[in-house]
C-alpha cells in the first residue's frame, strides 16, 4: 500500500500515452498529453506527503507544526504553468493544421511526410 500513489502516477502516464498513440483527433491528442503530464503532479505531491501533516502555510497554525513538503508543491506549480502554456501552443498549432490541411486526424496528415 505504501507505493500505491506512485503506481497511480505511473498508470496515469501510461493511460495518457495510450491515448496519444490511438488518437484520431489532434485536440484529443493534446488532452491526452495533459493527462500524461498530470501524472507528474500526482508523483510530486505523493513524494512530498507526510502522514498526518498539514499544508505548508503558517498563517493559521503555529510555527513548528508538521507540514508536507513545500518544495515539491512549488515544483507542481511550475509544472502546471508549463502544462497550460504547452497546451495553448499545441492548440494554436492544431488550428493552423486544420486551416492548411482541412483535417485534424493525425493519420490523414500525409502531406507532412511527402
Amino acid at each position, binding site marked *: 500500500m505504501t507505493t500505491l500513489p506512485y503506481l497511480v502516477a505511473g498508470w496515469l502516464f501510461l493511460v495518457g500515452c495510450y491515448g496519444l498513440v490511438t488518437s484520431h483527433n489532434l485536440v484529443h491528442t493534446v488532452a491526452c498529453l495533459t493527462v500524461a503530464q498530470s501524472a507528474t503532479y500526482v508523483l510530486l505531491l505523493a513524494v512530498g506527503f507526510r502522514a498526518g501533516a498539514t499544508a505548508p*502555510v503558517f498563517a493559521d497554525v503555529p510555527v513548528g507544526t508538521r507540514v508536507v513538503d513545500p518544495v515539491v508543491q512549488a515544483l507542481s506549480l511550475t509544472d502546471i504553468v508549463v502544462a497550460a502554456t504547452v497546451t495553448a501552443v499545441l492548440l494554436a498549432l492544431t488550428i493552423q493544421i486544420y486551416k492548411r490541411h482541412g483535417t485534424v486526424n493525425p493519420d490523414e496528415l500525409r502531406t507532412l511526410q511527402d
Partner: protein
Amino acid sequence: MNRRARLVLFAVVAPVFAVLFFLAVRGLPSFGSEFHPYADRAVAVATGQRATANVVSSVNFDQRAVDTLGEEFILFGSVVGTIVLLRPAPEERDAGLRPAGGVLPTTRLAGYLLLPVSVLVGLYVIAHGQLSPGGGFQGGVVLATGWHLLYVAGRYTALRRAAPPTVLEIAESIGAAAYTAIGLAGLVMGGAFLTNFLPTGSFNDLLSGGTVPLLNGAVGVAVAAAIVLLLSGFLEQAVVLRRTEEPLAGSSIGTEEPLAGSSIGTEEPLAGSSTTVDDAEQR
C-alpha cells in the same frame, strides 16, 4: 508512422516502462514517511529568517526565484508563439462580429455582477501570496477569468475595448521585465541575482517576506495579461475571422506563394479589424 506501428511500439515500450517504474518506486521512501530533508530546511528558512508564512511562495519567489524567472519566460515565450501562430492568414479577413446569439438576461446579469467580485478576489490572491495559499500565478489566472465574464455576458466588443491587445502586450512585457529588474536590484543591493534584499517585516504581516510580494505582483500582472492574450487569440479565431470565399491574388492555400503575398495580406485584416469592430459597436 501509421496507427498499427504506433500501437506495436506502445505495446513493446509500455510494459518495459511499467516494470522499470515499479522497480524505481520500490526504492523511494514509503508514502507519507517522515524523511523530508529539503522540506525541513525550506520551512526553517521561510518561517525564521525570511518571515514568509506561505512556505510555497517562499520557495517559489525567494529560495528558488531563479527557477520562477525561467517559468515566467516560458509563459512569455508561449504567448509570443501562440500570437504568431494565430495571426490572420492571407486568405482570412476580419468579417466583423458574428451576430451575438441569444444571451439570457440572467447570464448577462451574473456576468456583470461577478466581474467586480472576481477581479477583487484575483487582486486579493495576488496581494496575499506571502501569507495564504495563492500568489501571482493563481491570482493572475483569476483576474483573467474575471475579464472573460464580459465575453460570457455577450459583450465581446466591451472585452476588446477594456483590454486592447497592445495594452496587454505591454503589460505582459512590463511584468516580465519587472521580475528581472527586481532580480537585478538584488544583484546591486545584496550581491546576488534575485537576493531577497528588502527588510522582511514581521511574520504573518501583509508587508512581510521582503521581495516576495513584489515578485508576486510582477508575476500577477504578467500572468493576467498572458492568459487574456492567449484566450483572445483563440476567441478571435472563433468570433471574428472568416475565410474569404475567393483567396486573395497569389495566396492559394497549400503552395509556396502565401509567403510571397503574406506581407501585404496580413496587413489588411489587421488594419481593417479596428474599424470593423468600431462599426459593430456603434450599431
